[in-house]
């Protein structure tokens, strides 16, 4: 039952993203985003190219943006930490606006100790490099997609939507 709700809400969120013009996606899987990734894989409105690392995904999405597409990259915050240099030395100075869907592991309720430091530093690091980060909820799906789109358009730098485990249940 809960799973059905999560799939329904996730599909709604993906629908909102494509309705806002996002049409290309790359990324590295995260269990928390499994229904989002499944949607992208079977969604004719978005071209999905999986990557082997988050940095690579950002490179592929950069190529997509340069080609006129509107890209998304999905990853876990562990992968965000892997790719901070690519955000700081490619996306921000070259003005490459990409929407990043980032799972926030290490949030309250986390049961895996290796995620805790990433969890408590993710938002502060994004804030330090001047990237907008908003936490997705059931209630703000539309608003968060629209405000991210506005950020990307006005700032021409990446925007982050943080996703916490179980938030769409």
């Amino acid at each position, binding site marked *: 039952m809960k799973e059905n709700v999560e799939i329904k809400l996730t599909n709604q969120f993906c629908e909102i993203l494509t309705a806002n013009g996002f049409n290309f996606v790359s990324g590295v899987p995260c269990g928390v985003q499994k229904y989002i990734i499944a949607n992208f894989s079977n969604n004719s409105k978005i071209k999905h190219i999986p990557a082997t690392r988050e940095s690579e995904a950002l490179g592929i*999405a950069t190529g997509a943006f*340069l080609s006129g597409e509107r890209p998304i990259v999905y990853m876990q915050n562990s992968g965000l930490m892997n790719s901070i240099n690519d955000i*700081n030395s490619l996306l921000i100075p070259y003005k490459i606006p990409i929407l990043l869907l980032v799972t926030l592991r290490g949030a309250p309720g986390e049961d895996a100790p290796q995620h805790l430091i990433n969890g408590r530093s993710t938002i502060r690091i994004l804030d330090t490099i001047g990237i907008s980060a908003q936490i997705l909820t059931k209630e703000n799906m539309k608003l968060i997609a629209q405000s991210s789109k506005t950020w990307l358009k006005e700032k021409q730098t990446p925007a982050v939507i943080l996703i916490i485990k179980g938030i769409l249940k």
Partner: protein
Amino acid sequence: MKRREAIQTILQNLNKNIAVVSSLGLISRELFDLKDSSQNFYMTGSMGLASSIGFGIAINKPNLKIVVIDGDGSLLMNLGSLATIGHFKLKNLIHVVLDNQAYGSCSEEPSISNTAKLDKLAKVVGYNIVKKVNNQVELEKIIKESLLARFDGPIFILVKIELGGCRDLPRVLKLDKITKRFKIFLSQFN
């Protein structure tokens, strides 16, 4: 063959309908110094990602040929990209690796490309055509062939170059302007 000679040989054989993505450090600076053009995307940061950016363009612009000018150290940093390119088998991607067996843009600390056999790796992961060249004549020949319609990619060209060369090269400074200009260039193609 020196780095500059290799880049010059590639440039001399390009027409106006080809996009170039160059890897960081002296490769991009040399290209910028030899011939600045809206066809070029100089990737000056994001270590290792030139081939990923080229791939991201190639998959969205199937009618445009893309030449990536990579380095051995840079490719070793993002070997997953080699596997992705081999997997998707895009016909329009030409991946040139200038191999001086060193981190040439640093202080020429040795890389491990002498044992990594990058050309063999490219073949194994699925590149359609793989060539190793040692001089400008061979390089010119394979670049010319690669740009012909009948030559399907992904094409991997390992170019053995010497260490050394000019280091006092201009830097690409207006990075967001490069994006804007290159995006307009790409918008002409499907």
